[in-house]
């Protein structure tokens, strides 16, 4: 009983699923429905984890689900970044990124924005750091979202797929007498 159940393979499967689907154009809009792709990645990981869980091991608990979900989220977040970063940079070069920059420039004309702040943002935009900074910020927050929702997904997955009893509700009333000796 000194070994641990395999966690890396199911976490990688869930991570690849959530990372690739969340980064791809159009497909990533499915995340707008309750973060379905990220939660789905967590559920998928727990399905594979519990499917291959050795029966001789003690029953997996929800703490295991949290660890599995966190690892799935980390894998997923990294894969998400690897797939999304080139696509975002391409988008920035091809147009929509430029349009958004123009929109920000127009918003900067607002007289309510303090001149120092305006100057600072303009300087960042001219240096190209603003858009790259936005992408890096976005990817960092994607990683946080990926971990949080994958943990929730893995916990839901454990609740749905765990076959063995995880919890015995406390028994009430008198304890039944032991069976008579044969």
């Amino acid at each position: 009983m000194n070994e641990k159940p395999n966690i890396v393979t199911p976490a990688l499967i869930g991570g690849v699923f959530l990372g690739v689907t969340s980064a791809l154009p159009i497909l990533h809009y499915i995340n707008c429905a309750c973060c379905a792709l990220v939660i789905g990645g967590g559920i998928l990981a727990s399905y594979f984890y519990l499917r291959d869980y050795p029966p001789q091991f003690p029953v997996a608990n929800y703490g295991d689900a949290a660890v599995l979900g966190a690892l799935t989220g980390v894998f997923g977040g990294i894969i998400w970044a690897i797939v999304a970063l080139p696509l975002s940079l391409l988008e920035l070069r091809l147009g929509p990124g430029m349009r958004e920059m123009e929109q920000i420039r127009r918003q900067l004309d607002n007289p309510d924005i303090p001149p120092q702040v305006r100057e600072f943002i303009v300087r960042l935009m001219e240096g190209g750091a603003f858009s790259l900074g936005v992408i890096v910020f976005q990817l960092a927050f994607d990683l946080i979202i990926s971990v949080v929702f994958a943990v929730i997904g893995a916990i839901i997955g454990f609740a749905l797929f765990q076959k063995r009893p995880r919890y015995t509700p406390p028994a009430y009333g008198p304890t039944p007498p032991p069976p008579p000796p044969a």
Partner: protein
Amino acid sequence: MHETPGRYSLASWVLIAASSIWLLLVLAPPVLHELGWNGLEQMIRLAFKPVCHQISSRSPQLFGQPTAVCARCLGLYSGILIGACLLPFLRSLSRRLLAQPRLLLLFSIPMFLDLTVWKNTMTTRWVSGVLATFPIALFVRLALEQLPSSRLLRSHK
């Protein structure tokens, strides 16, 4: 470590704190807009962009500005907080959920009906979102309680 009925365990407090911070982030952009902190407001909106369509007409408004996510997402996040606060006091529901965890699916039925059957409103979206995640708080709390005993965190002996 386990919860005494009617009292919050450490795991409950952690969950309440984490879900409150998450909700504050969601509700912050209109307030930040009101304060004129537009940069921070845009950053928070950008952060939630991957997980919500952020359509203004479907988002609750504060000070005339939409929150960072739509009413349904706000309901889903609120559900975790409400569940974390109320479930310690709802003992029979908690026991039943722990004995039959697949009952979780029943709680999401109103949300699917809201999406497909009737003409939904801001209120029905929020309420069905709350119902869908309300019981999940119980399992998240349990996961936090059982985290120290997880085999996956222990080193090989």
